[in-house]
């Protein structure tokens, strides 16, 4: 029945009309094609989120080979998320979508930059972006499900690829240098590798949490704090009246005037590492915890000997050596693009120069010895 309906809707898609958003609270007959989710629409050479979905971005995001991300959350009509300081409780059927793309110049070259290139009214101009993949995170009865969709060359459709994919691209930076990237679309298990924060307890969204979302966003109607906007749209219950009581990470790449180097570094480690390096995540076996609740001490890596880093230790004796980034295992691993050395283990194939720079400055600023 649903298939038939979708078929009709897909015909309509030729007229640029997306199907209605797919509500799939249970079942495992997941759409093979991304368009069946009805999260994106096309018009006049632009691709944009449907108006029923809320776009969002994050204070400090995860680095994924400089890919830009178009993020959205869709909740069933009348349903809303419940605020929690650590994470929100999203309603059944919630669909998070995240489209990874690179900006493209007039000559069709892919660009390496961290600028926001989204048109708040019209979305992304198809001629000026290269769409790579769209990840869907779906909340069902038994928990969240991660589904990776890979875009075709013509940018007409993305297909479900359980086993992931890889794409060779070349990125042109502001200095005119070209950087080759073997972009890795994660397989469904690798999605879970990061999103299953608590071993055996299923997947969870990582980005749309209070501390990441607590920032202004430019909507079609103008700029507004995302959390307050969600609340006004009836999509978030229980938000504290005073936003001062809501945590926020430092803003990337340029921190707010009040945000210290330490906050910036901790926000970066939070977004890039703490999904695994927390007391119950898969990185727990290392004893290194980089979540916001862990204070800066041995458990956060200060003078801590690595446990099973192997060659990832880089012949350095401790994870963070105060004042000495070049004696710190943490720096060795974020400065590497070797899969057996680099951290995070997934999600990038090149080094995030700007992230490395912030961590380097922060470790340099730490006093003490080991």
């Amino acid at each position, binding site marked *: 029945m649903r298939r038939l309906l979708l078929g009709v809707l897909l015909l309509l898609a030729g007229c640029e009309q997306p199907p209605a958003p797919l509500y799939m609270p249970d079942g495992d007959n997941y759409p093979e094609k991304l368009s069946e989710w009805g999260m994106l629409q096309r018009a006049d050479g632009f691709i944009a989120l449907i108006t029923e979905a809320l776009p969002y971005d994050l204070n400090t995001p995860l680095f994924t080979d400089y890919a830009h991300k178009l993020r959205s959350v869709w909740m069933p009509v009348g349903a809303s998320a419940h605020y929690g300081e650590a994470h929100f409780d999203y309603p059944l059927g919630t669909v998070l979508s995240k489209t990874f793309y690179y900006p493209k110049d007039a000559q069709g070259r892919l660009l390496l930059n961290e600028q926001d290139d989204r048109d708040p009214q019209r979305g992304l101009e198809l001629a000026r972006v290269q769409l790579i993949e769209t990840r869907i995170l779906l909340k069902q009865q038994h928990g969240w499900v991660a589904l990776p969709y890979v875009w075709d060359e013509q940018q007409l459709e993305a297909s479900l690829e359980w086993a992931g994919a890889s794409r060779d691209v070349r990125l042109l930076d502001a200095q005119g240098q070209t950087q080759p990237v073997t972009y890795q679309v994660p397989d469904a298990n690798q999605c879970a590798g990061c999103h299953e924060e608590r071993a055996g307890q299923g997947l969870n969204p990582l980005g749309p949490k209070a501390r990441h979302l607590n920032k202004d966003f430019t909507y079609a109607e103008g700029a507004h704090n995302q959390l307050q906007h969600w609340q006004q749209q009836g999509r978030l219950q229980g938000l504290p009246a005073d936003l001062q009581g809501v945590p926020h990470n430092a803003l990337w790449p340029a921190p707010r005037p009040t945000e210290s180097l330490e906050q910036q570094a901790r926000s970066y480690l939070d977004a890039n590492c703490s999904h695994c390096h927390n007391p119950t995540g898969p990185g727990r076996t290392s*004893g290194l915890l980089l979540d916001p609740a862990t204070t800066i001490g041995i*458990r956060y890596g200060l003078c801590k000997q690595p446990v099973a*880093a192997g*060659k990832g230790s880089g012949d*350095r*004796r401790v994870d963070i050596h105060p004042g000495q980034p070049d004696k710190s*295992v943490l720096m060795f691993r974020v400065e590497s693009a070797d899969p057996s050395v680099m951290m995070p*283990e*997934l999600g990038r194939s090149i080094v995030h120069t700007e992230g490395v720079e912030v961590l380097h400055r922060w470790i340099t600023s730490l006093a003490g010895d*080991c």
Partner: protein
Amino acid sequence: MRLAPLSLLALSVLLAACGEEPASVANLDFQKDLQTQLIKAKPGSVIEIPAGTYQLDRSLSLKVSGVTIRGAGMDETILSFKGQKSGAEGLLVDASDFTIEDIAFEDTKGDSLKVVGGKNIIIRRVRTEWTNGPASENGAYGIYPVQTENTLIDGVVAIGASDAGIYVGQSRNVVVRNSRAERNVAGIEIENTIGADVYDNVATGNTGGVLVFNMPNLPQAGRVTRVFRNRIEGNNHPNFGHKGTPVASVPAGSGVVINSNDEVEVFDNDIGEHKTANVIISSYFSTGYTDLSTAENFDPYPEGIHIHGNRFGPAGDSPDHLELKALKISQFGLNGRLPDILWDGYVNLDILVDGKLPADRAICINNGSAAMINVDAPNNYQNISTEMADYRCSLPPLPAVKLASAEAGQGA
């Protein structure tokens, strides 16, 4: 239950049968099909991989419990990861009731087979190997269960790891037997594990043969490990581990090394041909780290150590590490040998009774005429002693690990 074999797999087998060389580029269709099977597996699924050498360029992973992966033999079904582009291991398993057998992992970029946090794990007749031989750029661990419970490692072969060939970390109730660890930095390493039996194995050509270690800053301190009936010989490979790793401090030419762990019984082994020592008993302090690197509740002292009834071959003629070389020459002469057992001499002064460790936390040595040397590292090697009287004691035998899969598999 058996899944229908993949047509691509069948094709690969046909090609292999025709004597075709395996392609040097990744067999992407095979990789995709296998990973899709792993993702879509259900409890009870058996994923069979026929004989053949398969090239992969990204890591595999399994998150479904109750799955068996079965090859046609550790020399017949070979997953080769030479040129791997992504993933920190060959196969990463985060699931319980998992069995893998009769398959080989070669040349993974990082670890070969890592199992995190599952219960009832069986790894048998699996080979992990870096085919270029020992090298620092090899992956760290071959067989690597961590934070697991009820784990059987049986009849595996681990060669060339730049850290440990067989490494069991932070686990409970483990049996490692009938296995061979060769030319790794550490052959077999049991770390922060509670209840491990290591028997009927061969460890040779490594830097250190069998290690029983405790590391600080981890949720669980290890204790109760039995190492028996193993052949641990000629582990003299220069240490090619990386600084900062626990194995980096192991002197080349070590048979069994116990570091900071408690309740360890080493008996009935054949241990010999080690240039430094057949057995080393040491503390975390000997690894060069200070209090700044350890959480306050960490116990760095090896206690309740019982070394008895082992047959020692020659050892101690050419120790690694400068201070040991100097010590050997000054105490035993240019052509002399260190005793079979070397102890760094660190004790917890807070628990001494009349200057001695309480009986249940003692170090007890009983191997015929074999001697132990206390090198007195805490006092800069000032009071080196080979006096055995205080260590001629005995401890009650440690309990055997009870593991259903090990009993079922006896004689298999």
